[in-house]
């Protein structure tokens, strides 16, 4: 299982900060598509993805124990 974190608008739509999903061995893009079929997340494609607190490319492969975070466009400062 892999923990997936949501922030800002995504968190409100999902209704959770964190969900656990079966995603060992799939890519970031595949996880994104899986989540798009589960939740009504129009903005997900707009989000960056971090794996273990570092920005990741779309073709990165996930493994057990990874923490994936969807990072909508940031607005700090």
């Amino acid at each position: 299982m892999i923990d997936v974190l949501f922030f800002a608008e995504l968190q409100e739509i999902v209704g959770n900060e964190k969900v656990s999903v079966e995603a060992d061995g799939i890519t970031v893009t595949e996880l994104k598509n899986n989540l798009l079929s589960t939740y009504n997340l129009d903005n997900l494609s707009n989000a960056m993805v971090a794996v273990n607190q570092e920005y990741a490319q779309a073709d990165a492969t996930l493994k057990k124990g990874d923490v994936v975070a969807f990072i909508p466009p940031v607005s700090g400062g």
Partner: protein
Amino acid sequence: MNNNFWITDKPIQINECIDKVVRAEAGAVNTFIGTVREFTKGKRTLYLEYQAYKEMAEKKLSQIGEEINDKWNDAETAIVHRVGQLDISDIAVVIAVSTPHRNDSFEASRYAIERIKEIVPIWKKEHWEDGTKWIGDQKEQTTYIPSEEDLRND
């Protein structure tokens, strides 16, 4: 180094951030303070809510400090960003950069605030009289995944 970069849910004490960078080798400290502005394009903000992916945000703030070290000679940086509900005029972020000479302190401080707006996972939600909105994608900006090369050339 790492304790120079942190996220807090308490009111920010400006001096706490500045004190981390004042030192005998530096003659200049530039500080940028971001506060909650009441009006944006004529629309009145009641208050803001900031959220962060805390662990990663602190890591990315620290990365900005390292980028500054690569770009400017003998700079020391501290950055604190607040999360939670912030009222008008409350401080959201403080950046302090000390350098031997003043030009570098201005440039590095400016660089830090621009980088915060690019790579640090912090979000703000506007609360207006007639609604709320998470800010960030209004400009239809493309997503930004900084490569190693970007970081070097930026």
